[in-house]
Structure formats: structure tokens, C-alpha cells
């Protein structure tokens, strides 16, 4: 079955979707190390339900809803070689989580999300499927490093390992590859932005036949400029609604001409935006870019919302 993606104002999602009960049960099994048939079936059922919601909403470029992933950094740390999980670390109040710990050289030794990509493609009724991977900067800064003691070396190894996964995804037919770097806007250092560009070159630079997307959100996004303009990406996917489209001014200042993932839905609020509100957001985007270069989507992943709101 084929599906023609519109030539302008393509709609898409950032990645995550509220967990279905099947996914929550699968995550429990995964935590216990039980990754057998029951686990796989539960994950598949959850992915199928996310896809069903995307299709019924008429989204042009869909994803797997990240139903297999409890946390975007922990998931890849569990799958790549060189990581283990730490003891609990506080995130706020009395809430703790386990952080990935780098204990050896980071390497890729098996396909991680390729089967999920194939499965969603089967269900997508011809719509393109976007794959999402947590980027080297976010993976490194959200981990504890016991092995490298050198951010640059670790990030470049991460980029190499993740590029192997992308190679497998591209071989399986993926044409929309998104690298998620939410940590990038939270730190002030310019050299980190430059290093991320270098890591992205390793990770996605060679895949010029796919649409390469980087997603960043919440924080001082202006710190990424102007270096981000030279990143080897075709599309920059940004949160816009939550910050009241303030970033559009910055994009105009830098004569931004890549494709833009325009966030028009605030994922931190259970209030559902009206169609008029969304149209107004798109109009603001159209003031700086032609419709062919605008992808319309939520600010970020939808997993923190209730399914009804999402």
C-alpha cells in the first residue's frame, strides 16, 4: 500500500506516546530480565495501538511511540555494550532513578530498534516511519562515566555505535532518522555544541539518502546557534509552543533555511489546543519558511500526557 506524503506542511510526531497497559506490563517484565515471548507480544500490541492512534489522527510520518523504552537514555544503555545501570540517584525530592554507567568501551553488537521499525512499517498503511535514537550528547551527560574520563572520546564512540544502528535501520528501509538531544539545551558550554556537531557527523553524516533530523527542546535553545546551522542534518525539530514561538525570531536572524519541525502543541499541558491556535502557530512559522520546509508536530514526545489528551 502506498501513501503520498504531502509536499508541504507534513504532520509528524516527535517519538514517545503514553504507555498502553501492555507496555507497562512489558516494562515490568523487562526490569525482571524476562524478555521472552510474552514480553515481545506485549510490546508489539502496545506499538500497534500507538500506530492505530497515529493513523486515526491522520499523521503523515509516524513512529513506534517508544512503547519499548522506559527511559530514552536507559533503553539504549541497556542495549549497547559498555554500560551498566547505577544505584539510585536522586532526581528530585525523594524520587530516584538508575543512571546508565559507562564501564567499558561503548560498542554496538546487535540491532536494537530495527525489528520495531519493520513492524511499524507493516502496520503503517504505506506511511513513512520515523526512527528515533537518543543522541551521543544526551546519552553521555545523562550517564555516569567510569571508563573514559573524557567526554570527547566517549561521545565519539557513542556516535560510532549509534551509527551502526542507523546503518541497519537504513538497510531495513528507514528514511526518516531522528536524533534526540534534549540535554543539549541545558548546558551553557559552547564547546559541547561543537562536539555534538562532530559526533553527529560520525553518526548521520554519511547517510545522505535519508532525512536526518535532530530534536532539541526546553532550555536555552539559543545556545545552539550559529553552530547548529552547520550540523549535518536536514531538519531541526524544536519545541515552539511552550516558549510562545520566541525561537522563530532567532531563526529569522540567522536566515535559517533547513527544514523545521515546528512544535505547535504544548506537551506539558493537558489543555488541548484548538485548531485555530494550531493554525496560528503554523502561520507564525510560515513567516520565516515556506510550507515545504515545515513539519507540523507537538513540542516533544507525548508520553507524559494522558492518552485522551495525546
Amino acid at each position, binding site marked *: 500500500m502506498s501513501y503520498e506524503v504531502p509536499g508541504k506542511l507534513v504532520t509528524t510526531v516527535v517519538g514517545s506516546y503514553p504507555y498502553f497497559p501492555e507496555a507497562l506490563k512489558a516494562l515490568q517484565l523487562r526490569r525482571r530480565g524476562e524478555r521472552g515471548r510474552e514480553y515481545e507480544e506485549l510490546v508489539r500490541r502496545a506499538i500497534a495501538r500507538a500506530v492505530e492512534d497515529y493513523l486515526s489522527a491522520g499523521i503523515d510520518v509516524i513512529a513506534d511511540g517508544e512503547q519499548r523504552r522506559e527511559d530514552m537514555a536507559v533503553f539504549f544503555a541497556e542495549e549497547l555494550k559498555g554500560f551498566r545501570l547505577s544505584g539510585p540517584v536522586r532526581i*528530585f525530592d525523594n524520587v530516584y532513578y538508575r543512571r546508565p554507567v559507562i564501564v567499558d568501551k561503548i560498542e554496538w553488537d546487535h540491532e536494537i530498534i530495527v525489528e520495531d521499525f519493520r513492524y511499524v512499517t507493516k502496520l503503517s498503511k504505506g506511511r513513512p516511519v520515523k526512527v528515533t535514537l537518543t543522541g551521543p550528547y544526551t546519552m553521555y551527560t545523562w550517564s555516569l562515566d567510569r571508563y573514559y574520563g573524557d567526554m570527547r572520546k566517549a561521545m565519539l564512540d557513542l556516535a560510532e555505535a549509534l551509527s551502526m544502528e542507523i546503518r541497519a535501520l537504513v538497510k531495513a528501509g528507514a528514511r526518516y532518522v531522528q536524533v534526540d538531544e534534549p540535554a543539549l539545551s541545558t548546558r551553557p558550554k559552547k564547546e559541547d555544541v561543537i562536539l555534538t556537531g562532530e559526533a553527529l557527523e560520525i553518526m548521520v553524516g554519511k547517510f545522505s539518502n535519508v532525512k536526518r533530523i535532530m530534536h532539541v527542546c526546553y532550555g536555552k535553545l539559543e545556545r545552539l546557534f550559529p553552530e547548529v546551522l552547520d550540523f549535518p542534518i536536514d531538519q531541526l525539530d524544536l519545541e515552539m509552543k511552550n516558549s510562545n514561538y520566541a525561537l522563530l525570531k532567532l531563526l529569522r536572524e540567522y536566515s535559517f533555511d533547513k527544514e523545521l519541525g515546528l512544535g505547535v502543541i504544548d506537551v506539558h499541558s493537558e489543555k488541548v489546543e484548538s485548531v485555530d491556535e494550531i493554525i496560528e502557530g503554523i502561520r507564525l512559522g510560515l513567516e520565516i519558511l515556506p510550507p515545504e520546509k515545515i513539519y507540523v508536530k507537538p513540542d516533544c514526545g507525548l508520553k507524559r500526557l494522558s492518552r485522551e489528551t495525546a
Partner: protein
Amino acid sequence: MRLYAGICGSFPRPPELRKAINEFREGKIGRGEFEERYRSSFRMVVRLQEDSGLNLLTSGLLLWDDLLRPFAENLAGIRLGRLLRFFDNNFYYRCPVIVDQIKWMRPIILDEVRSLSEVTSKAVKAIIPGPYTFLKLSEDRFYGSRDRLADDLIQVLEREIESLSDLADFIQIDEPSLVDPELGEDDRKWGVEVVNRLLEAVSVPRDRFLVATYFNLDPGSYSILLGVEAGLHLDLSSARDAEDVLRREGYSGDLLSLGVVDSRSIFPEKPEDITGRVEKILEGVSVNALIISTSSWLDYIPFENAVEKLKILGEVLRRLEAGSR
């Protein structure tokens, strides 16, 4: 020169305490049982510091949910707001929302500091949030004037410091905002002025005060920091060139705390390397009292790794003491 080793601020909550807090908040245990379990964790954290050879102890701040929380919860005029990121950490604090005039009602950390001084014969450090960082990390819906808000914050913190003065050997005023790289020069200078106004207001001798900065240190902010009329704690682990800045610009105060053990990393650190770094700093810096410390609080790493940090601190102290004999 008097030589101390001690952590900068908090110690991770022991697993048993995390469990007790959850059970207490869920109503599964009463206050009596909770306090008993807290005291057991508190004694364990004190013992861990002592057994590692540290000679300047903190309470571990085991019940503090964040730097501002005990104060935001116990001062009049403040209610708790949303969770916000604490500087560049994957750690969040609850933003104090100032809705009325801030007033000091009762001692806030006195019991905690008293308990520490009762169970240890080592020197004791009390910690309070500084007025500038408090102001910067809060949301003001009442004063509409940073000067008037700063005046009242200084007043309440002065009351708190006076209540502690007999129990603590050192009082540390935490001011990470003073080295926030986002700050403009004028803002930073005003921040130093606010801290100095607090120091002028209290009757405790200046050589017992430490103003703690962490997460950053660059040449521009360091030269302004030197205007603080008390000892300084400097994070020499987070910023890549912080030690160069210190060596190049010097230090003329009486009390200095060096955050040479990285509180946000678990990469193995060698006591001999850290000792070498401190000795190199001391070639150009002369103080009456030197504290060897973690770069900041220890909330950012797991409990077992924090225990490793204590041992490193103790070992560095032993090596420095052996070297100075």
C-alpha cells in the same frame, strides 16, 4: 595552617532512609518510627565521614529535598512552586514562590546542627542557602523589587545564622548563582554586595564563614568573587580551567575551601593526583585554614560512589598532613 577535609554539603540518602521517607509520606509509619529510622541513617552518615578520616563534618542534609526547601517550607511568606532544573544538573528543585512578606518564625536547621555537634568531636559545618541564590531561584510575586526582597532575605538568614553560631565551627552560605555563567557583571557584583550585607549584619566572626560557589568558575566571575568578605569554596572540578584561574589571580583571604574531589562524576580519582593539585595551588596561595572538599553536594551520584569520595577526601588529608610534617 589548619587543614580540614570534609564534604561540601549533602550526602546521598541511605537506602533505608529513602524507604522510611516514602513509608512516612504514605502514612504507613508514624512520626516516632520515622524519626528513629532517620536518626539511624544520620548516625551512619556521620560515622562514614569520621571513619574516612574527615575532620570537618556536615549533617549530610539528609532531610533536605533541595538547597532551598527547609527554608521555603519554614519561612512565612513563601509557598512551594513548580519543579525547576537546578543549574545544569539532571536534578530539580521546587521553586519558592514569594507571596507575602518573608518572616523568620523559628530556627530551621538548629536541631540538625545540634544533633551533629552532639554526636561528633570533629569540627562541624552548618549550611544555609545564600540570599542571592535564594532570590535568583525564587519567583517573586510580592515585593516587585529585588532590593526589598534582598533586605528581607538578609534579615531572615541573619536570624538563622545567629541561632547556629554556638554550635557550628564554620557556617557555609551556599551561593552557586554567584558563578552562574549567564549572569552579567553588574548582577554578579550586586550579588556579592548582597552576600556582604548579610555578613555585615551577623555578629559571628568572619573567619568562620565560607561562601560556597559551585558548578562554574571563570576568570570574570572569580575576580568579582574576590570581593566576598569571607572565605570561599571553589568548585575546581566542574570548570576545566578553574585551577588556572585560581593560580593566576591568587587568593588573599584567611579561609579557603577547594572542591577538588568531583561530586558529579564517578570516574575513579587518585588521591595522589588530587594531593599534587592541592600542593601546586598552595605554592601560590597562603591561608590560615584550608578545607579539602567535594566540588559540590553529593546528590548527583549513587550512595556507594559517594562513600568512595569520602575515602578519597580522607586519604588526601592524610597525605597533605604527612607532607607538611
